């Protein structure tokens, strides 16, 4: 793989949190490579460090050992260059801003001019299928719609890398399926690199090109699975033998991780 297509590269990454109850080993000896255009899922039980790993990539946590590069730079340099869009577990919209106001927030901060702000807000709103909701306040939208706005907000400044922390975790299964399908199409169109934290096996299998299975205490990677599924996916594909085998392998990995307890 050429150097320029490497988006994230982690070598022997370690992170120990000092807490009141003593040190917590959140990440241990993490080796990970993410290439341009990859859709990587980090899957594992609660406390396996999948969110922490993503926060390290985003420079929201500092590792205590090892090495990590994002776009060939330190995570801090990458953050200062606004290299990624981050989508949180909950929509985290500003309640005092309309949908449009929320979408423009990153653009205002980055000093994009007014006309361009309006253009981009309309553009990303169309991407998530919410045209017509510009003037609504977040409380006037359903949970699924709010999360779509939050994804749109991460797209407004055209980052090449999207970091998503269980973005659909709080939604019910039906809405989740819809959003998975919708988001897969969006990824196909935009060809962004995505790092996606989840603890849903079907979600990880359906969306990813590469699935990273993690186990807790200390958080480490126990399996990396290249998806055998074709790049174009449909929800029906989830009944295919390949999909079932893939899900099975993920489940095996998760179970192996648990047997350490």
């Amino acid at each position, binding site marked *: 793989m050429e150097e320029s297509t490497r988006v994230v590269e982690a070598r022997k990454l370690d992170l120990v949190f000092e807490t009141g109850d003593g040190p917590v080993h959140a990440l241990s000896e993490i080796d990970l490579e993410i290439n341009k255009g990859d859709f990587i899922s980090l899957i594992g039980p609660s406390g396996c460090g999948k969110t922490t790993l993503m926060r390290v990539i*985003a*420079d*929201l946590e500092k590792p205590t050992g090892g090495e990590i590069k994002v776009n060939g730079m330190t995570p801090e340099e990458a*953050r*200062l*260059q*606004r290299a*990624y*869009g*981050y989508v*949180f577990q*909950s929509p*985290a919209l*500003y*309640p*005092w*801003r*309309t949908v449009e106001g929320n979408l423009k*927030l*990153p653009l*205002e*901060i*980055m000093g994009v001019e007014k006309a361009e702000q309006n253009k981009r807000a309309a553009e990303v709103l169309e991407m998530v299928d919410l045209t017509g909701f510009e003037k609504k*306040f*977040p*409380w006037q939208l359903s949970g699924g719609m709010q999360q779509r706005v939050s994804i749109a907000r991460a797209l407004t400044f055209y980052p090449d890398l999207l970091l998503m922390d269980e973005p659909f975790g709080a939604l019910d299964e039906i809405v989740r399926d819809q959003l998975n399908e919708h988001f897969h199409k969006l990824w196909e169109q935009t060809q962004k690199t995505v790092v996606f934290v989840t603890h849903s096996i079907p979600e990880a299998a359906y969306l990813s090109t590469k699935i990273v299975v993690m186990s807790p205490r200390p958080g480490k990677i126990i399996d990396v699975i290249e998806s055998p599924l074709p790049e174009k996916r449909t929800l029906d594909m989830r009944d295919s033998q390949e999909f079932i085998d893939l899900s099975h392998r993920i489940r095996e990995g998760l179970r192996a991780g648990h047997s350490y307890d």
Partner: protein
Amino acid sequence: MNWFRNSSFVSITTVLAFTAVFWYAAAVYLNSAVLIDKYERHKVEWDFSKLVDDSWSMDRPIMPAPHQIILDLNKSIFQQKISSKRSLVYHGWVTISSTMVGFAMGAILGILLSVGIVHVPTLNKSVLPWIIASQTIPILAIAPMIIVVLGAIGVTGLLPKAIISAYLCFFPIAIGMVKGLRSPDPMHLDLMKTYNATKSQFFWKLRWPASTPFLFASFKVSIAISLVGAIVGELPAGARAGLGARLLTGSYYGQTVQIWSALIVASLVAGTLVLLMTVLERRVQKRMGVQL
């Protein structure tokens, strides 16, 4: 019957009616001792209905009846020229103007302190205890000092009173705003960090709007105490003008009706100020998309 039960007009009138009945009864009870004593000294024939009549129409009652206060309010508000020293409008305005100036000073001071405390860790440790300590000093003790000290360096009139108001009302604003500016969700703070936002963007786009509910809650408390501060400030100022002066002269000359009139005006002013603040809050909330 639902409109009847839900109407705030009905509930307010009911409370008012009960208060009036209780008040008239209290006036008879509290004034009767003086009256009976007087009847006996002058050997006047009296019965209960005479006692009631007299206790509601004394010149210097211990407890004036509501209608006496209303008559006095009418006389001192509507029957006087506004610029007259006997006009409650004149005295009320003197107090309101120093209340407003004091509130503005206190609001600016309180907000600046809270911004400093939230952003500078040293200020958080060093200033906050002093702010709290400042409020343990009884205002009645420190008010004359402020008036005297400022008078000695030639500052008199509105400013010393406004300073007393500001001294009282910066506190709830500072404390409320420290909490308000720290109220943003950690996720919102992380989000701003991922955008590489500057300190001033953190403040103006996140901390400041997130703190508005706290700002208005403390404004409502502060504007009422600011009025108390202005009245307290008028007491040692030689009782020249203001509602505080009316209270003081009323008690010098045993003019209880005058004291009560001034009290009623003060509470109406406080109620109006808080109401105006609530209206302002509603308008701001509406612009900020709060579900009313």
